[in-house]
């Protein structure tokens, strides 16, 4: 077992910060101290997937406010700041100091604050005569967002800055690239500090990932050399496994595998991310509020936005986020049935109680029933919570199903799997593209791009013209294709990125199970596809590096060990033992498909742990947009 997942570690760090940076006492008898939490957008993104308002309340946070919102003075309460050390944030803090908003200030910076900025605050504090009020100043090193137990992304606010588009645009200047790399390295460094481990770095040669690796190696070295101030002291004292087993951090570049992010998927979480608005573990869905129009007719139908949080506490989500969709639909139905049964049980008990109450004789029976009733009442909140979750998943799954049906995503998924595994196609690509019923132009573009990326030799000019025409007729924007053509020509040296493993899916016939009439999930016409385990390129690389397998694909990967005194340029790994823990980081954006694939891979290997991280998390349409931006130039 790993000591603690990255989610637990980050949550613990946050809680410690909210407890004025002193270790937590898990003790509700302790005297409560009330405080105000001030954060900026970055801090908000970090906190919101991890701590709900309820937990903040339990920590004594009475108010949580954005730094740049209009805040009133509360003179007798301490304030905890959790912000990025940016220019405008510092200005705002100084302004707060001057206007004497709070009793005392605990300044926490998400990543390290520079000396000059610290001096800015100091001078403002002197000017406002508030030096004694600033009780603590801390660097928190928490500049990354944890979404799952084993998944993180770097940032959300300024993700355009480090997007795939930004890294790969042709007219990028060296200084821009430098800033991008520094941003990524800073966040990664924060991640490693929170993880409390110095990993061994591996990366392919000659791309953005290598630049990140070099910089990260340098930064780690600098930190380790200064033993007194090192942030990694704890791991030598033994936080469980890390003392003798170091993880490997594999840095990869998105250009390695462009097909996967465009792929249509079939697992629940990835589907939700693909077709719905899924953002920082929260789904936003628009539902129109029925056909009833207000009598005046002046007000339009209000679009109702519904938010659903898919959290770690949601057992159904935890269990099924990686399952193929038909299975999820079935499980939702089952959950619904068990819930109904429980509800009936409670109702039955109530009716029995009513009857028995009139029967004077059966006092013992009554007391027995009282106990039952008590237990039923105490189980009610649990039941309510269950109902909430079931409702949530019913709504989400219905919305997903809607998309699948209208866009025929099952057909796309099956077809793409076949393309990637190079099995025979039962329908020509041209037919798929020109089929007016199946999918949006975007879906067609994705399909064709996958075909183009995975094909061994590019189609002839004549064919190409035909395809272009068909795509244009289908209403596609052709600029992503332009970029992919350039990329393919450029990436000729990557001999076989196309090997996507054995056949992926097989149809289990039409979904034959007759659903009960009340069922919300009429899966008619949607193929019940079952996923077969196969490894995506990212997973294969990870497998090679973790198991120290020799493979031409990964043999020339560079090897960095920040703990070694002198940096070596060799790509020969020093230690030959297989790794137990690994962190995969994709520079240029990741997706839930790869994450799910890794999770499935780890399931087959007991004792191994893999963390997945990416510089940004995009779904296919966002990625396509970036590609088309690149293609327009």
């Amino acid at each position: 077992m790993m000591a603690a997942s990255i989610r637990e570690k980050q949550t613990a760090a946050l809680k410690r910060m909210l407890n004025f940076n002193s270790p937590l006492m898990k003790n509700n008898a302790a005297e409560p101290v009330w405080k105000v939490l001030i954060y900026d957008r970055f801090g908000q993104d970090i906190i919101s997937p991890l701590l709900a308002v309820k937990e903040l309340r339990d920590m004594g946070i009475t108010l949580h406010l954005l730094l740049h919102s209009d805040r009133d003075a509360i003179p007798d309460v301490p304030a905890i700041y959790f912000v990025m050390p940016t220019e405008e944030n510092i200005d705002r803090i100084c302004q707060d100091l001057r206007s004497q908003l709070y009793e005392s200030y605990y300044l926490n910076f998400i990543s390290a604050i520079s000396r000059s900025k610290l001096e800015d605050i100091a001078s403002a504090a002197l000017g406002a005569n508030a030096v004694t009020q600033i009780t603590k100043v801390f660097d928190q090193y928490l500049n990354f967002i944890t979404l799952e137990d084993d998944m993180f992304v770097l940032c959300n606010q300024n993700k355009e800055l480090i997007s795939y588009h930004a890294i790969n645009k042709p007219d990028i200047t060296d200084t821009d690239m430098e800033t991008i790399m520094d941003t990524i390295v800073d966040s990664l460094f924060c991640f490693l500090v929170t993880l409390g481990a110095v990993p061994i770095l591996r990366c392919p040669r000659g791309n953005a990932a290598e630049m990140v690796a070099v910089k990260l190696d340098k930064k780690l070295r600098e930190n380790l050399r200064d033993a007194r101030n090192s942030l990694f002291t704890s791991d030598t004292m033994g936080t469980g496994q890390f003392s003798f087993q170091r993880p490997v951090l594999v840095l990869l570049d998105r250009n390695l595998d462009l097909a996967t992010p465009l792929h249509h998927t079939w697992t629940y979480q990835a589907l939700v991310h693909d077709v719905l608005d899924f953002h920082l573990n929260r789904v936003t869905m628009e539902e129109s509020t029925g056909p009833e129009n207000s009598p005046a007719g002046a007000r339009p139908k209000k679009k109702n936005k519904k938010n659903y949080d898919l959290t770690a506490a949601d057992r159904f989500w935890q269990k099924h986020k990686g399952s193929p969709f038909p299975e999820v639909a079935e499980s939702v139905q089952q959950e619904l049935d068990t819930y109904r049964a429980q509800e009936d049980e409670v109702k039955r008990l109530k009716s029995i109680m009513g009857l028995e109450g009139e029967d004077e004789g059966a006092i013992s029976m009554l007391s027995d029933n009282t106990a039952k009733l008590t237990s039923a009442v105490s189980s009610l909140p649990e039941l309510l919570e269950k109902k909430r979750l079931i409702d949530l998943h019913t709504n989400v799954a219905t919305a997903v199903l809607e998309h699948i049906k209208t866009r025929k995503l099952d057909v796309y998924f099956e077809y793409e799997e076949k393309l990637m595994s190079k099995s025979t196609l039962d329908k020509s690509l041209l037919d798929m593209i020109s089929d007016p019923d199946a999918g949006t132009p975007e879906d067609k573009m994705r399909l064709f791009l996958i075909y183009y990326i995975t094909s061994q030799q590019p189609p002839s000019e004549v064919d190409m013209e035909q395809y272009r025409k068909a795509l244009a007729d289908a209403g596609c924007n052709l600029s992503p294709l332009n970029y992919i053509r350039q990329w393919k020509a450029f990436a000729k040296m990557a001999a076989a990125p196309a090997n996507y493993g054995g056949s992926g899916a097989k149809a289990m016939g039409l979904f034959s199970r007759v659903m009960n009439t009340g069922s919300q999930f009429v899966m008619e016409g949607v193929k019940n596809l079952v996923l077969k385990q196969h490894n995506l390129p990212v997973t294969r690389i990870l497998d090679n590096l973790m198991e120290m397998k020799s493979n031409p694909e990964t043999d020339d990967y560079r090897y960095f060990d920040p703990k070694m005194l002198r940096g070596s340029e060799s790509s020969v790994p020093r230690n030959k033992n297989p790794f137990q823990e690994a962190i995969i980081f994709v520079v240029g954006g990741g997706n839930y498909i790869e994450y799910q694939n890794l999770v499935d891979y780890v399931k087959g290997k007991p004792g191994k742990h893999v963390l997945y991280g990416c510089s940004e998390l995009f779904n296919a349409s966002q990625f396509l947009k970036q590609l088309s931006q690149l293609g327009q130039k």
Partner: protein
Amino acid sequence: MNTRRRHGSRSTEQGVYLGPSQTQVYPPASSPPVYQPQPPPPPPPPLAIIDDTMSCRDRTQEFLSACKSLQGRQNGVQINKPTLTAIKQRSDFTLMAKRIGKDLSNTFAKLEKLTILAKRKSLFDDKAIEIEELTYIIKQDINSLNKQIAQLQEFVKARGNQNGRHLQTHSNTIVVSLQSKLASMSNDFKSVLEVRTENLKQQRSRREHFSQLPVSGSPLHANNFGNSVLMQDESRRSGDVSINMDSKVSQQLQLIDEQDSYIQSRADTMQNIESTIVELGSIFQQLAHMVKEQEETVQRIDANVEDAQLNVEAAHSEILKYFQSVTSNRWLMVKIFFILIIFFIVFVVFLA
């Protein structure tokens, strides 16, 4: 507010309070509890993980030194500005809230003690008086806390709108959090009392069980148990046993009296506990609807922002619509004007 007090080593996992006992509530007459069956030391709490990964860096010193050097550079322009703001007097509200908080934590400590006592299953080492006393004290405490919180709420309401919006929410949240704490405490208290009642019931049944055995077995054994207080129920009911042992009759009778009073006291205790539970129930109901007022269990901090954004968007679309309607009206006006002019011309040209 740095004067937070951390109580000593304490672990709530088993409801065991190992720190120094809070004896100010404890009557000195009842001998200090001797913990013979010392509960096993609690397993090292999971805090261990939290503690040794200090992933942050304290730069307070660096900040202070920066301040000092800056101050030195500024060289006494305004060094001796009186630090009047630093020692600001706290408002009544804060003081009140703090006091309640302290009382709450004290009561929690008492409750933990009671939990230990009540969970004890032993027949012979039953500290009935202590438990009763503690129960009474805690009951009083909860009552007074409840009143105090209500008072605090009144205070907030009375002060009402003369405060800023944020201050208002702040104080409301404090009240609510105090209430919920009290609610959870009374819940604990109730469950402890239930455990106690259960224990008493068990003890009684056990006593009956044990005291029946010798009677049905052999009367000789009863002699040995004669002194045992446990036997008295039985001996009273089946009188013949005690009659056979005439040498002990007088002693037995005396014991019966004693026993009677003992049982009486037990019954009283039971009643006491029962009434306490009922009282607690009412407090609960009071609290429940207050706490219910805020529903934020599953909210996330970015919810408000998104709401605001949504509202802004809605406002924007409304404005757009209004703009459209205005422009279309303008068009209408132009048309009417046009028609008027035509009529005017017609009138002027043909009728004049």
